[in-house]
């Protein structure tokens, strides 16, 4: 398993990133965690619909997104808010989506990040089509698709991997193996030793990386992105990580895993690891960290305010969203009103 920074913060070999780069990545992880914790709190207050937390997976998401160009395509899941945000999707729209507002699905022009896929498995092939189109149109854009360990059980994973390999599309497959598909552990999902090795069956390179090591994820994904951009085809990266929270706010992990395991993984917390790295390097300042957290909370509060300021969606918007031009049956139904 490829890794650069061990849980205790020691670096194996030379780190291919500058201290400033590491600080940026850390700052982004801090902001992502602030969003995640705020969302959990808001959901409990009834201000959000069901929420799927990513605490523990910040390194996998921030590290991967940091490897992309601003106009690359991203197709992720309901758990990829950090990844989507780092790729350009505003927090405010991610929050709006979680309040149950379709307007949250519409990122600004130039941000080529699809709204999160709620179905498991269906969106990987979309990244193949997106990057295939870019290739045919002669651009240098690539597409990254993020999905979980459980998604690799779906037939659509197989078809997406195969199409990408067959047509050598510039697609990067990022599997965040966080140990579970809701309650179903990774070891029961498949008998293959790793998810990365599944790539071989498609004639595609596959690599397993420590998903809680932001430097390792960034480096591995950057390499895959470069390969794809240079026309050398797709790759699969398995980021081994762990979901510290529940599957969603509706889930009770106590039913399927014991706290000890979770505690073990808290020790491997991706933020803690960077803190230790900095401490070892004498680059850690408590004040700096507090400042980051303050700034993070501020920017999330601003985003929340924006999201909650969106006026109640109207009835006719629901009809207007269906087609470029509203069809006659919809016009008739809109006319019927709700009495």
């Amino acid at each position: 398993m490829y890794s650069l920074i061990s849980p205790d913060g020691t670096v194996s070999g030379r780190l291919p990133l500058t201290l400033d780069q590491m600080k940026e990545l850390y700052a982004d992880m801090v902001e992502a965690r602030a969003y995640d914790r705020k969302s959990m709190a808001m959901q409990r207050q009834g201000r959000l619909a069901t929420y799927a937390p990513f605490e523990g997976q910040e390194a996998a998401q921030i590290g991967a997104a940091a490897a992309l160009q601003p106009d690359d395509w991203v197709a992720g899941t309901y758990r990829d808010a950090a990844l989507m945000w780092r790729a350009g999707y505003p927090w405010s729209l991610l929050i709006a989506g979680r309040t149950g507002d379709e307007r949250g699905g519409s990122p600004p022009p130039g941000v080529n990040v699809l709204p999160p896929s709620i179905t498991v498995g269906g969106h990987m092939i979309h990244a193949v089509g997106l990057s295939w189109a870019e290739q045919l149109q002669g651009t240098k854009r690539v597409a990254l698709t993020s999905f979980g360990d459980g998604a690799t059980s779906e037939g659509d994973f197989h078809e997406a991997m195969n199409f990408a390999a067959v047509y050598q599309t510039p697609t990067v497959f990022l599997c965040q193996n966080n140990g579970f598909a809701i309650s179903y552990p990774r070891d029961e999902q498949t008998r293959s030793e790793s998810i990365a090795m599944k790539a071989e069956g498609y004639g595609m390179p596959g690599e397993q990386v420590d998903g809680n090591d932001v430097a390792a994820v960034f480096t591995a994904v950057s390499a895959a992105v470069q390969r794809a951009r240079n026309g050398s085809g797709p790759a699969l990266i398995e980021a081994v990580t762990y979901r510290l929270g529940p599957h969603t706010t509706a889930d009770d992990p106590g039913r399927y895993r014991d706290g000890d395991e979770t505690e073990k993984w808290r020790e491997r917390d991706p933020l803690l690891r960077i803190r230790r790295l900095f401490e070892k390097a004498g680059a850690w300042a408590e004040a700096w960290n507090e400042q980051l957290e303050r700034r993070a909370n501020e920017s999330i509060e601003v985003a929340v305010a924006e999201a909650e300021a969106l006026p109640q969606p109207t009835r006719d918007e629901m009809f207007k969203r269906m087609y470029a031009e509203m069809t006659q049956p919809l016009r008739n139904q809109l006319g019927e009103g709700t009495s």
Partner: protein
Amino acid sequence: MTEVNLAQALNSALGTALDSDDRVVLIGEDIGRTGGVFRITDGLQERFGAKRVFDTPVAESGIVGAAFGMAIAGMRPVAELQFMGFSYPAYDQIINHVARIRNRSDHRFTAPLVIRIPFGGGIGAAEHHSESVEAIYAHVPGLKVVVPSTPYDAKGLMLAAIEDPDPVIFLEPIRLYRAIKEDIPEIYYTVDIGKVRVEREGDDMTLISWGAMMKETRAAATELENQGVSVEVLDLHTLSPLDADGIVTSVEKTGRAVVVHEAPRTGGFGAEVASIIQERALYSMSSPVMRVTGWDTIFPLKRSEGHYLPSSDQIVAAAMKSLEE
């Protein structure tokens, strides 16, 4: 007798089936350790073991295809698909294989399995979690499609579905899982598949619905009675095979009908109901069959649910319009 809600009634039915028939196995995502996202199979893996209640990989086509093979080999699998919006990956297995093996093999091989599908909206869920596509199952020859709206029916229809020699799509109204409580027998009993249930008798008009929309329909019926309208309420509770006689008999008596469903109107199952009524009871009809349904839009997210879901007010209004004609 014991007072239970619809979710508990289903749990009791599945427990009773596992208890009384060794051929019964349950298979689905997260149904074991967690007892399913709606807890319908709560406690059943502890009680009957991991060789009767199987957690599966996230692969709906695989779940149905494997259950189908098990059924051919003599077992009575009950498969759970977590939400109706995730039943589509299994649609090919259902329509091309489950529904066809009896015909394909001229009765030599059969698929007595039950496919449980929670459906409908109203819980502010994420996209794909509020579907009502009963019409795409009711249109498939070779399947039976059952939809309980009371705890008593839920258990009785489930046990009947498991007994049935043919495949049954068992639709569970999510919004009613914990909405109504009712006394049901703790023992084994069945409710006939294929017969309309006259929930309430009346003379002035017939309200027809199924699943979660029975709630709004009941409310509308009460409201109408208060306004002096004598309402007959039919709970179809089987969409396929459809009890056309039961529907026609009622409308011949009342002369008026409103059919209510949550699915989009165009091509919804209400169209079949209205067609049958005009085919067989046109000359008893004092007014057109009204359809109170979801709109031809995608089921919206939480903040707009109210714009989509048919309300008892809409049903009352349609009924009044029908009476004026």
